[in-house]
């Protein structure tokens, strides 16, 4: 474990989180030694392909995993340990201090409850406000997330709203109790491109104006480019690179991050430029490759990578910013692997 210095104002401090699922076919390690710190007002992007363990990590923190999951590690939020705390203690935090925005707003809202009640009910639960107050606040929140015709929407069912509208409602639900921490799990995946941009703008606005700490989980580097301060890249249930978003995007240290960036289509690409893809399949958490989980798809490494798993090491940026990478042959600013420079 690299020692990431704790700052005085760490909001969420995840240390060595691991998530395992017991299945009839054996145990699956979904997340391994996941560590991350989020400061107030900071936005951290967590990026990776599906199955990399992004969502599972944060569902574990919120106590939302299925009963066959085993979670180890430490998660301190506002100084209090979340893992292993009672349901009552957990309920005092989630929805109130820390809220989650889910992907797929189609299925994440209760179909038979009107939008207004779904937004207001966490207020009723946490703040013991009257239904009338909850309703007034719900209206305010719908306006806050730029839902048009908010008054009428309060009395509608989720299926009567459009996809983008539903995602705004999801965000309003999360904002109801003015949380200091927001976890957004693929908040734009299910949406049209134009709506995606609007939702991202809304999240950026919340971060700017309300100073909430934010974790943005996505498989799409483009999503975090404009909004995140730092980024953690996950592969095979582990963080393999971490650093300021600008530095990581500009000069990735891990070959996987580089491949991920290369596979992003860009507006300024020539029309006939072939779309790069990463060869091979994302690893199956049931049968993770030995050593570095990325080695079967990596174009850089050698036999060492198959034999030995590289630890997450500190790897400061030339500008002095913090950075971490888990690779035997990290790439340097010139983009070339520098074996001789490996410690």
């Amino acid at each position, binding site marked *: 474990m690299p020692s990431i210095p704790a700052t005085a104002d760490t909001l969420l401090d995840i240390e060595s989180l691991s998530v395992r699922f017991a299945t009839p076919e054996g145990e699956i390690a979904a997340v391994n030694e996941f560590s991350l710190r989020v400061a107030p007002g900071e936005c951290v992007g967590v990026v990776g392909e599906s199955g990399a363990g992004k969502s599972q990590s944060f*569902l574990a923190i*919120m*106590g*939302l995993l*299925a*009963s066959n999951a085993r979670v180890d590690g430490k998660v301190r939020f506002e100084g209090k340990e979340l893992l292993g705390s009672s*349901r009552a203690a*957990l*309920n*005092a*935090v*989630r*929805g*109130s201090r820390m*809220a*989650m925005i*889910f992907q*797929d707003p189609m*299925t*994440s*809202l*209760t*179909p*038979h*409850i009107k939008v207004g009640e779904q937004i207001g*009910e*966490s207020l009723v*639960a*946490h703040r013991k406000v009257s239904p009338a107050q909850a309703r007034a606040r719900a209206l305010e929140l719908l306006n806050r997330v730029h839902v048009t015709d908010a008054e009428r929407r309060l009395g509608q*069912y989720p*299926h009567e709203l459009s996809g983008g509208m539903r995602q705004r409602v*999801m965000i309003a*639900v999360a904002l*109801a109790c003015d949380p200091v921490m927001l976890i957004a799990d693929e908040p734009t995946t299910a949406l049209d491109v134009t709506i995606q941009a609007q939702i991202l703008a809304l999240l950026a606005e919340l971060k700017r104006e309300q100073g909430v700490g934010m974790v943005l989980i996505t498989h799409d580097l483009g999503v975090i480019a404009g909004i995140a301060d730092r980024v953690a890249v996950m592969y095979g249930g582990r963080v393999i690179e971490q650093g300021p978003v600008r530095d990581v995007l500009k000069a990735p240290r891990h070959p996987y991050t580089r491949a991920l960036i290369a596979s992003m289509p860009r507006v300024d690409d020539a029309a006939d430029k072939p779309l790069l893809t990463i060869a091979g399949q994302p690893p199956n958490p049931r049968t993770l490759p030995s050593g570095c989980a990325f080695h079967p798809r990596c174009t850089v490494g050698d036999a060492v990578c198959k034999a030995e798993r590289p630890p997450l090491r500190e790897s400061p940026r030339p500008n002095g910013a913090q950075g971490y990478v888990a690779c035997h042959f990290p790439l340097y600013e010139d983009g070339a692997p520098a074996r001789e420079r490996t410690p």
Partner: protein
Amino acid sequence: MMRYALRRLGGVIPTLFIIITLSFFVIRLAPGGPFDEEQALPPEIKANLEAAYGLDKPLYEQYVRYLGGLVQGDFGPSFKFKDFSVTELIAQGLPISLLLGFSAVLLAMMVGIPLGTLAALRQNSPTDYSIMSLAVLGIALPSFVTGPLVALVFGLYLRWLPVAGWETGQLRYLVLPVITLALPVIAYIARLTRGSLLEVLRTNFVRTARAKGLPEYRVILRHALRPALLPVVSYLGPATAFVVTGSLVVETVFGLPGSGRYLVQGAINRDYTLVMGMIVVYGSLTLMCNLVADLLYGWLDPRVRYD
């Protein structure tokens, strides 16, 4: 919603018509008649009887006459209960049968839904296993076995409740019949509730509700239970049919003067009009219950559209 209900109600009538027509001809075409008794009647008396009941007319004429009577609420005379019309017989017995049936369905929901919920929330625990094993037993046991057994234990041995009879409509005479009738429905509803609640508990919106930090009882009662009850509501239609069937037995076992036994007696005696009357009444009852179950479904799930 109202228009949808009316249109569905309209759809019931053709179905009922087909049922009436089919059963009318099937019953009349069957060999043997109401006046074929062990000691054969003299032919002229039999002919007189048949003429009196219009059985000598061509079949289609009997059919038209029967339909004409039905429209006016007249089910015709009973062939065996000579002093009564079928309408009178049914009017006497039906209230008791309805009371019995509806109490049983109500009891089944009040017991079955909580049991199924409990089993789902304690999935794979001893509680779950014992509730589900009892449910298999409850579904497998027919009411003509549970009825006498319940009467034996609670009536004869423990002497808590009357074994049988119906004295001036005292409610305690209904307790054992209602329990007997409800047992398999309880078992079935508990199983349905458990299965669908387990499914609903895995949905995204229940996860959202938990992420809001709502107390668990609110997650279950407000968010999860209503969609989980959809299959139970769909089952209410078949359940009514089931209860109707069961009431035939339960009324026999417990000696209740309901209308169910008329169907059986009518069938034994080849009392055409009585059997037909029972089919019309119970058939429309079943169709109505299916309709109510459909409407209830729409109320529980606002995504159902009425067009």
